[in-house]
């Protein structure tokens, strides 16, 4: 039986590999995703970080009153410009985002050691202005603290005295990656789910509905072979191809992110080892099993290749949609959500790739449930193959 099974698997693989165009299309559809995501995410990230690094343009009224402060700002990536006389009007109109006003008595108060007040003109209703304003404010605060510390030191007092309650900012983002860098890992399940559901979908249709439409199914089933062996053989061939596509997509995505030139472009520093790649593929194997089995079932049930394509496409879409949703809406999972096939794996993969520990029981339960659905679909397909409708296809019987 095993030799015969291998004969069937071998034939399906050779037959399909020779269909270069279809194999090429399937691989292209799966491998374009990681490329696309890396480029898109990279662009987004780059734009954000560039905005933060770009010099802040700050119009100043009365720059001559505080040359030290202006120099400090200039050293801290701020472009000082001369503000127009009607500065307040200009901010209100929205021509300027923020204006710094240094009053004429600034120098006198500063030298006296009294609070030398400056004013930031901001339109609070203007969202885009507030980012620039808070950057300016925090720079001026820095300057103020520096001067304050120096004054205390000059009077023989430790500046630490004035810092009564220091606050430390502790990032809880797990693993080595920091926030932005690991956000790209939210896309990993999307890449993998797409590969799992779309990688073998064409082959599943071709091996079932396609074989019937080309009229080679009837002579095939006249061979003295239990029909379940044909189902298993075809399944194994499609499953193998799906796993290959999934592995390639996962590896491509993570390897791409690790290439120095790519990191330079995307501004994401993330290095994921082969261990993580293999573990991610391992976690998704039950989903691949279920996806291929379901696709084979509906494609065998369908009356024509066209119908089969419609059905399997629906399954594939429904299968990978949750991953897309959860990558943009990071909902924290409830306990029961870990049990749902595809959604469970989605969280397992995201957590694992960030170096978080997994709950072995949860992984086992979800994997088993997923595989059980696949096994049920496979058994149902075998039942279909034992009915004469599988040969007739059309609703003549």
């Amino acid at each position: 039986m095993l030799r015969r099974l291998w004969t069937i698997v071998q034939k399906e693989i050779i037959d399909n590999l020779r269909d270069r165009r279809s194999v090429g299309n399937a691989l292209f559809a799966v491998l374009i995703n990681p490329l696309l995501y890396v480029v898109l995410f990279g662009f987004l990230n780059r734009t954000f970080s560039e905005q933060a690094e770009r010099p802040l343009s700050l119009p100043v009224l009365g720059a001559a009153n505080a040359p030290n402060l202006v120099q400090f700002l200039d050293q801290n990536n701020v472009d000082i410009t001369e503000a127009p006389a009607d500065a307040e009007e200009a901010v209100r109109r929205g021509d300027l985002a923020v204006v710094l006003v240094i009053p004429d008595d600034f120098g006198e108060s500063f030298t006296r050691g009294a609070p030398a007040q400056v004013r930031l003109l901001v339109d609070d209703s203007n969202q885009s202005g507030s980012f620039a304003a808070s950057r300016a404010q925090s720079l001026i605060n820095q300057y103020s603290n520096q001067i304050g510390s120096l004054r205390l030191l000059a009077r023989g007092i430790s500046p630490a005295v004035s810092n009564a309650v220091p606050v430390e900012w502790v990032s809880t983002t797990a693993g080595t990656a920091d926030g932005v860098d690991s956000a790209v890992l939210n896309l990993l399940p999307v890449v993998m789910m797409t590969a799992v559901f779309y990688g073998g979908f064409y082959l599943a249709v071709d091996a079932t509905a396609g074989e019937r439409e080309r009229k080679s199914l009837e002579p095939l089933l006249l061979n003295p072979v239990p029909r379940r062996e044909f189902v298993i053989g075809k399944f194994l061939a499609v499953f193998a191809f799906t796993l290959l596509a999934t592995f390639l997509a996962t590896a491509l995505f993570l390897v791409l992110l690790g290439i120095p030139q790519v990191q330079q472009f995307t501004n994401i520093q993330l290095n994921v080892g082969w261990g993580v790649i293999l573990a991610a593929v391992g976690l998704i194997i039950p989903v691949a099993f279920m996806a291929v089995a379901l696709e084979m079932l509906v494609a065998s049930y369908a009356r024509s290749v066209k119908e089969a394509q419609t059905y399997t496409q629906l399954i594939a879409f429904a299968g990978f949609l949750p991953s897309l949703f959860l990558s943009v809406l990071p909902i924290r999972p409830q306990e029961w959500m870990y049990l749902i096939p595809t959604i469970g794996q989605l969280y397992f993969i995201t957590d694992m790739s960030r170096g978080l520990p997994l709950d072995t029981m949860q992984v086992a339960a979800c994997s088993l449930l997923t595989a059980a659905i696949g096994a049920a679909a496979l058994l149902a397909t075998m039942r279909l193959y034992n009915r004469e409708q599988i040969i007739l296809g059309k609703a003549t019987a």
Partner: protein
Amino acid sequence: MIQVTHLTKSFGPVQAVRDVSFDAPDGLITGLLGPNGAGKSTTMRLVAGALEPDSGQTTIDGFETHTHRLEAQSRLGVLTDAHGLYQRLTARENIRYYGRLRGLGGKELEARIDELIALLDMADIANRQTEGFSTGEQGKVAIARALVHQPQNVMLDEPTAGLDVMSTRAMRGVIRKLREDGRCLLFSSHIMQEVAMLCDNIVVIAGGRVVAQGSPDELRARTGQENLEDAFVAIIGTKEGLI
């Protein structure tokens, strides 16, 4: 030896086969003759185990097709009306696949394939992918595939349909050779001349029923016609659907 007893099959409201019984003994060519749509193909698909009968039995060398499908099918080689080759496999690979499915392998299988390639005179196409083969070339591959395991019983559904003169003659030669080897041959046709020329035993089917069966001499005697073709027309009552 193929035996069919009280076979009945309906597709929804259409009764395709109604109480058909006949025997196809070893060493003889049995022809199923009937107009298109008479139930020839359905009968053969029931014998081969592709379809389930509503009632009745079909046995191959004593094995009932539906209760002992694998034993029955291992003693049978079938040429279906649609040849159904794998277009991306070569002719040889198509034949080899069926050989392996039937438990053959290694040198024995390759020798058998070479033998069939020689018998059917298809050396020039043996290693080409079958996509784009003419109907005659497809027919050769399909018959080689059906005979690869040297079955005692051979069933051919319209084996000469769509073939040119040379291919038709070659096909008839193969059928005669199988009879010389003592095999049981059952073939269907709507070509009266072909049936008259080849068959030792004729089953005439019309409207899903067997309307007559016997040797050519018996059929001529029964209808009182000199010519076998006239005898067919007399039995079926019309020439429609026959050639």
